């Protein structure tokens, strides 16, 4: 499967328009993160993709063909629901066995997945004795058990510790390498920022922005933070700041002891560096540029929509 395209998908619940002509494309080898406040339509979109809801309008195209989400297509998808709670009185192995039998998966693959998610040692224990992270890892294992071509993860980082996050990252990398499609819905933008290729920001059932992080940064055009650390030379520091103010009169330069903080548009950084290092200032110990975090970009795009 190379791509799935949502074309002008609309879904209403009574008077509520949960999705309003949403169009986006999932491509192979690409992980897309659905972000948005509660009620933005993320779960509705996922449920439509899973065939749980029927859209009121629009079409879903798989590899360019408009097809319904039937059992054949469902068999190619893997799904991790948000905060899933499996039966407490069964063991992790028994739970995985059910999904393995349902998908026609053999024991070898089950062992492999159990090993991968780090639950081999606890597979025979009742799920009631599992921690939240272990339960989430089990659910993650179940979602990839049949090696689906499309992996849909709803809040996958919920409850995961570092070890669990490591499992999640390795699975995402593997799926991407194998050219499969990944759709993630999450509020953890900070954690997932470097792990996904594309962000789709939804608000009130509409797509606010959908692109790769660099493009979203450009779209938001938020200032970057530049921090200079200077050597202890009060007269030299004053000259340095004065020089910067001369070149960039509109910038707000904040001095805090030996460190100087400046917020500015990223395209002007080259000018700043040229100015700051023009005289080969022996005063500058270090310079650090911090790009705006994805959470800030997300909030900005939401607010400005």
């Amino acid at each position: 499967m190379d791509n799935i395209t949502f074309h002008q998908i609309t879904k209403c619940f009574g008077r509520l328009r949960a999705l309003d002509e949403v169009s986006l494309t999932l491509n192979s080898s690409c992980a897309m993160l659905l972000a948005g406040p509660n009620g933005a339509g993320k779960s509705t979109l996922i449920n439509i993709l899973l065939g749980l809801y029927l859209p009121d309008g629009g079409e879903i195209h798989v590899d360019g063909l408009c097809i319904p989400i039937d059992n054949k297509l469902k068999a190619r998808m893997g799904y991790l629901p948000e905060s899933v709670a499996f039966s407490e009185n069964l063991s992790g192995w028994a739970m995985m066995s059910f999904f393995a039998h349902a998908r026609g998966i053999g024991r070898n693959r089950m062992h492999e997945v159990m090993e991968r998610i780090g639950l081999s040692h606890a597979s025979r224990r009742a799920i009631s004795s599992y921690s939240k992270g272990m339960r989430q890892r089990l659910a993650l294992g179940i979602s990839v058990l049949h090696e689906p071509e499309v992996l849909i993860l709803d809040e996958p980082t919920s409850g995961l510790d570092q070890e669990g996050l490591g499992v999640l990252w390795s699975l995402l990398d593997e799926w991407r390498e194998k050219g499969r499609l990944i759709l993630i819905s999450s509020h953890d933008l900070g954690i997932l920022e470097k792990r996904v290729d594309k962000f789709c920001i939804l608000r009130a059932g509409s797509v606010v922005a959908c692109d790769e992080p660099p493009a979203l940064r450009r779209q938001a055009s938020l200032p970057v933070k530049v921090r200079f650390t200077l050597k202890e030379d009060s007269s030299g520091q004053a000259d340095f700041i004065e020089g910067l103010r001369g070149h960039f009169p509109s910038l707000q330069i904040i001095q805090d002891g030996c460190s100087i903080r400046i917020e500015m548009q990223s395209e002007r950084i080259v000018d700043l560096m040229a100015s700051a290092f023009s005289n080969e200032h022996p005063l500058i110990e270090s310079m650090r540029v911090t790009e705006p975090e994805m959470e800030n970009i997300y909030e900005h795009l939401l607010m400005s929509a």
Partner: protein
Amino acid sequence: MGKVARALIWHEFLERSRDRWILVLTLLFVLLSSGITLYGKAGDMSQGEVVGPSLVTLSSLLIPLVGLLLGFDAVVGERERRTLNLLLSMPIHRWELIVAKFLGRFIPLAFAILAGIFSASFMMEDGYEAGLNRLIVPSLLLGASFLALGILVSSVVLRQATASSLLITIWFLLVFFYDLGILGALVITDGALPDSLCAGLVVANPVGLYRIVMIQRFGGDDFFSGFGMDAYIPGPGVEAFIWLGWIGGALLLSVFFLHLKRERT
């Protein structure tokens, strides 16, 4: 049925078999039916006349309760645990999910019923135990009806707590108050209700049907007339229709509500 549905049947059986409430009720059924048999053996009357009707009374109380208990969380439990969407995201039709839930939960129910009847049968003296075997099929049908009813309740409500309250209400209504309601209607109307309507209402309730059919089978065709009563005994065709109507109707409605509720999950 597809692969997912077949796996679900086994999974449901496994899960329900480990349910402590079901184990406790099965044990209770075995103990009480054995106790009734031992008590029946002690008297001078024919064991068949004493033990059979007593077991019918016990079964008509306990089997509906076990059936409802097994069914009430079938769908709403999955919904609350957020596993319903996970199940439905697999290649399975909604009707298959309901039927698989029903079949998977029917196995432990059948085991509980058979354990109760066979434990009584085992303690009966030779020649009488065959009589108790007549209880098996109607008891399984009674259990299946209430299991299907439990699954229906589970498909309608959105909270497990609501389902459990409804379960108790349905049990009281159908097991205890239904006949009283018909009696009350007769008193209020001063017996003006047509006999056919009253008779139809009695057997329309699976518990009423079970009681009438089983008591007639144990007591013989003249049992009710011996007490000066004129009971309507449905023929095998009508009896089968009522049983299948309850089981099939409840399951069909469950599928309908599962379809309806997908828009509100």
